[in-house]
């Protein structure tokens, strides 16, 4: 037996369902922000980091690819053209006046020109860049092995992290910065790259110097690097979470 549809009743049911849905969504969002969930999320990140450290040895290498795997054009993401005047001045002169500053908890703070960095032990690797959004892109990177540079300035025992200070303000906000702990910083594939696919690093991809940390997601790999700072803690930087995106809710451990 069929009942004639009652529009009033149907509307009531639909609205009821919609209201329940909205309440549930609002509830989820409140739950997401609650202290209890924040603790659980932090615990889950800690577990992931420890598991990764257990399974991936210090030396375990990211996959390196063949030249034919290189993507026709390497996707540029985040800032692709910094608008800061000091950066633009340096770019106008092909970064000849650009200097990388290295300071903080080091024995011999110093500055390095691009030519000096190019003269240091270099590495070229064809690796896959994994964005937190989900896409991947393969490119060939050339740069100075970060560990070699750190050895040159002499890292002090108290230092635990390398902070990468950048020239760009993403969307005109805070200056971009990122941090790696020393284990990841000394990884043989961790580079300060000045070359992409056999050419100078393009501005869209972070010229004159960007970080490559091949066992991490893309947001770790700071572009337009101006200064390295060795620190014992990054609590005093930005909002204290160790990076631009970390300050905006992304996790410091970017291994997944």
């Amino acid at each position, binding site marked *: 037996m069929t009942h004639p549809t009652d529009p009033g009743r149907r509307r009531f049911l639909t609205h009821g369902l919609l209201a329940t*849905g909205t309440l549930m*969504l609002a509830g*989820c*969002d409140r739950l*997401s922000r609650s202290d209890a969930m924040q603790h*659980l*999320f932090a615990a*889950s*990140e800690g*577990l*992931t980091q420890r598991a*990764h450290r257990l*399974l*991936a*040895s210090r030396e*375990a*290498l*990211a*996959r390196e*690819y063949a030249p034919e*795997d290189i*993507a026709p054009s390497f*996707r540029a993401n985040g800032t692709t053209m910094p608008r800061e005047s000091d950066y633009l001045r340096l770019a106008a002169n092909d970064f000849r006046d650009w200097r990388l500053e290295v300071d903080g908890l080091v024995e011999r703070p110093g500055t390095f020109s691009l030519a000096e960095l190019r003269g240091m032990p270099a590495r070229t690797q064809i690796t*896959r860049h*994994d*964005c*937190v*959004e*989900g*896409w*991947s*892109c*393969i490119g060939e990177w050339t740069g100075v092995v970060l560990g070699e540079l750190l050895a040159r300035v002499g890292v002090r025992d108290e230092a635990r992290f390398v902070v990468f200070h950048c020239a760009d303000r993403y969307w005109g906000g805070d200056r971009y910065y990122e941090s790696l702990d020393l284990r990841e910083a000394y990884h043989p594939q961790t580079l300060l790259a000045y070359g992409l696919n056999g050419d100078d690093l393009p501005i869209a991809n972070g010229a004159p110097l960007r970080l490559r940390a*091949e*066992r*991490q*997601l893309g947001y770790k790999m700071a572009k337009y690097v101006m200064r390295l700072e060795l620190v014992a803690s990054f609590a005093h930087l930005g909002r204290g979470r160790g990076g631009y*995106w970390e300050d*905006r*809710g*992304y*996790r410091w451990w970017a*291994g*997944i």
Partner: protein
Amino acid sequence: MRLFRAMRRASRPTVIKRHSAFTRVWHWINAICLAILLMSGLQIFNAHPALYWGKDSTFDAPALSIGAERADDGSLRGITHIGVWRFDTTGVLGVSGPEADRERRAFPAWATLPGPRWLAMGRQWHFLAGWVFAPLLVAYLVYLVASGQLRRRLLPRRDEWPRLGHVVVDHLRLRFPRGEEARHYNLLQKLAYLVVLFVIAPLVVLTGLTMSPTMDAAWPWLLDVFGGRQSARTLHFLAAAALLAFFVVHLLLVLISGVGNNLRSMITGRYALPPDHAPSQEKEPHDDASH
């Protein structure tokens, strides 16, 4: 009086213990985890709503993509591409939300966790639920093997196979085993649970791990097994879709094959074997006695 009690007992269905405590607890925790994983997974997918096959993303030739386009009349249309096919999916995929306030997003807000676009939070839910789901899955598979339940309850016996066609037809006609036949899983149940537990669930975990650059350094074979990170991402999505399909069918069958009995068996463990014949067809024992 004793005769009467005996007859009552005879007409009462046999109650068996169907699920162990571990199975029951695992089942419900799993249900919550899978809901969170699926919805937060769609949130993560929305950050880059395209799938590829291979080592990296061939941006101009995705296997699947969900996007939005402006139609000639100026309205926003949700367009889903699968290979060379193109579908208008406005309202659900690509463009969704109330008519007056359409939003460009691959999966609609009601399907994602959290509702609004929030990749960072979707990831946190996903990994937290993953940390519960994956270890419990491993524990449950080990338990099934070690307790002998895999052999006793899930692996089909040789003599079951010839009845496969029969069982399929019975299921399609929504006729489910009754009486002693319902004491054990039927062939279709066994196959469904085996495939979900030992193929799809491990697949979803391993393809998930393959998307982690650190895991790829730790276990490079993951990339070889799944044909690259982007293939793994696509397989992860397909495996999740398979789990969702399983869930839908599972829920429907639970509902129509005796929902109270089924639910009780997964809460208290006790399952009443459905009587061989419907009670109305049974002759009332009193009638015989009165003659």
